[in-house]
Structure formats: structure tokens, C-alpha cells
């Protein structure tokens, strides 16, 4: 039986404890923000993919990642870099992440746009597709505002972002 985990595994597990500062049901790993982890002796470097370039949460996330990784006893130094390649898109969110968003009351981004470029999301409360887009822009860069005509709830949806 293997009892000791590799340092990289430990780092990965610590990163799975870091949540989005505003949406505390989803981890940054499930948001698809984790790039490479590289380890040189006791120094850990974590590459992260920024969701939106102007997102003010990026600084907070960076601090939280440093804090979480430093909790591992053998780690002496942590460096976090935001990288632009590969670019983050809303398809980077994991299946688990999509469920976590729903739990918070945010519809996950549409996985596929229609052939004419339009897209639809289902209400995170009742599942209905009978809803209207009130504002493509929302309370944060990554979210849009919608209204469900079925259950009469306003809700937010992750804005679809792609590099097509």
C-alpha cells in the first residue's frame, strides 16, 4: 500500500480547497482555471488561467492559492502566475463545476451554441428553457442576467466565452 502522496498530488488536493471568492460552491479547479503545476525541490509554481482579464477576483484567488499551498509542510516557496495560453473558455468548466454553479443558483454556460450562433440556458431552479436574457452583462464579468418565465425567478447564468 502506498501511503505517501507525491508533492504534486498534495498540491492538487490543496488547490481543490480553493473556491471562487464569490461563488463558494465551486473550486478554481472545477472552474477550469488550473494550468501547470511545476515543482523544483521545495518550490511550487502554479499556473492559472484567468477567466476574464479584468476580473478583480484574480488577485484574491492568487493570494488564496499561495495560502493553501503553503499549508503543505514541505513547501517553502509558492509562485502563482496567470497565463494567457491556453485561453480559458466557458467549456473549461468541469461537469462537477457545472453542478456546483447550479447549487449556487447560477446556470452553467451553454455547452453548444445553435447553428445560427444563438444559445439558450436552462433555469437553475426549475430547469425550464422558457426564459429571457435581461442583460448579457451582469454583477461580474463572467455572468449574465436572465429571468425565468416558468417559475418567475430572476437568475444568473455564466456567460458563454469561446475563442472561435
Amino acid at each position, binding site marked *: 500500500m502506498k501511503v505517501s502522496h507525491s508533492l504534486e498530488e498534495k498540491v492538487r488536493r490543496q488547490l481543490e480547497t480553493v473556491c471562487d471568492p464569490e461563488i463558494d460552491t465551486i473550486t478554481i479547479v472545477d472552474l477550469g482555471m488550473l494550468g501547470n503545476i511545476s515543482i523544483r525541490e521545495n518550490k511550487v509554481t502554479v499556473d492559472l488561467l484567468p477567466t476574464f482579464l479584468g476580473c478583480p477576483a484574480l488577485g484574491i484567488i492568487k493570494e488564496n492559492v499561495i495560502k493553501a499551498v503553503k499549508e503543505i509542510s514541505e513547501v517553502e516557496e509558492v509562485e502563482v502566475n496567470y497565463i494567457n495560453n491556453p485561453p480559458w473558455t466557458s467549456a473549461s468548466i468541469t461537469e462537477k463545476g457545472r453542478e456546483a454553479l447550479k447549487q449556487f443558483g447560477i446556470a452553467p454556460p451553454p455547452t453548444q451554441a445553435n447553428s445560427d450562433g444563438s444559445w439558450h440556458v436552462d433555469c437553475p431552479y426549475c430547469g425550464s428553457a422558457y426564459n429571457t436574457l435581461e442583460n448579457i452583462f451582469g454583477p461580474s*464579468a463572467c455572468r449574465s442576467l436572465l429571468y425565468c418565465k416558468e417559475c418567475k425567478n430572476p437568475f444568473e447564468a455564466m456567460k458563454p466565452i469561446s475563442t472561435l
Partner: protein
Amino acid sequence: MKITSVNEVNDPKNVDYKRALVDLLYQLADDDFLISYRGSEWLGLVPHIEEDVAYSSIVQNTMGHSAVYYQLLEELGEGKADDLAHARTESVRKNAILLEEVNGTGHWLYQEPMYDWAFTVVRNYFYEVMKKHKIESLKTSSYEPLAQVAVKVQSETIYHLMHWRTWFYQLVSAEGEARDRMKAAIEKAWKDVGGLLSLGQNRQAMANFGLIDSEDVLKERFVAVIKDAVAHLNLDYPGELGMERGDGRNGNHTPDLKEAIDTLAEVYNLNPAVPW
């Protein structure tokens, strides 16, 4: 030719390449920075609350884009990104004059702001059309880190252009005051639109080094979109691209820029050592 690292740029044999690249990055950074600043002055003053949400989100994204370009400049040894944004005087700024112009008379804090929404819509629409074509071109830039940023920026700006295009088309299509004011705003913005499309005195080098498409090609694409829009909206094409007040890329600016920098850097200037 592809350049993938800062070290390559700093190789003495690439001194001309670096000059063109640095100039281009300053133009991109300063443009996004100034239009964002003018946008931020609208907070709480726009026509309705959904627009407040939308415009501030666009401004936040765009400010993020300028920060990334300043970051690329920092990596090239130009100084700290925060200092590049706050501490540079007017004469070395490279933004287009159209972007530094005040939103209207008055002030958001000191006097009643009589800002011009029509001018704001026109300026932002022209800006996003121009930016779309620049970013598309930058995706194949010979400077790999810039090409990567362009891919990321493009995924966000699709929504910005959609937003301003909607305002532009709807206000011009409306009858009466809206259409009249939009026509006046188009006429006013057109007098400086040439400066928005200028790539400055290193334009030739930028194209030769494959940093971005030539100024003429970019201009042509911009003009094609505007011609299409005005035809659709039954407006006359405004004609020759104006540059009445000079070329911001070459350091020509108006007093509006000094006022903007003094205001936006007021807190920074209290203590430049404080991290942001």
C-alpha cells in the same frame, strides 16, 4: 518570423523590432486605458440601471485589457505596469485624441454633469469596430505573447461590440432628437477618427515585422463596416477620415488628457509606493 520571448526581443539585433513593438503596445494600452477612464466617469449617470451594469462591466474588462498590455511592457523592461498607467505625462501618451475627450460639459463630482450619451455611443462603437479588427490581426502577430493576449481579449470584446452596435443602430433608427443628436455626434467624432486608426510613425516597421496588419488594411476594414452601417441606417457616409487635432500616437494631445491623468492618478500620486 516569430518571436516568443522577451530575451529575443532584447537581443541587440532586434532593436528596430523592439522599438516598433513597444510603440504598438503603448498605443494599445493607452487606448484601452483612456476609453475605460472616460467610461468610468459615467457610473451612475447612464440612461438606465441595466446600462450601468453593462457599461461598467465593459469598462472593467477593457481596463483589464490595458493592464495586460502594460504588463507586457513591464516584461520588456519599460517599468512597472502601475507606473506606466499612472505616472506618464501627457506628451508620452500614445492614445488617440478621440478617446481623451471629455464626455461632455460639467463634471461627475464638481458641477452638474451634462454628458453626451450620443457622443459616448458613437465613440464606443467606432472604438470597438476598430478594436475588433486590430485584435483579429494581432492574433497572428509575430510577437507570440501578444498573439496569445489577443485571443483572450477577442473572446471578451465580441460582447462589447454587440452592445455598442445595438445602441448605435437603435438610436440612429429612432426619429427626432435621438437621430439628430447621433448625426451630430458622428460628425464630431469623425473629425478625429483618423487618429484612432493611425498606427503612428512606426506604422511601416510594425507591418514589416509582422506585428500587425498595415494601417491601410486596418483602415479599409474599419471603413467597410461603417459604410455598411450608414447605408443600412440611411445616413450619408461622412467622407475623409479626419485628424483635425493631430495624431495622439505622436504625442499630440489636448488639455482634456492632462485633466484625465491628473484625476485618475490623484490617489496614486499621494503615495506611488502603495501597491494596488
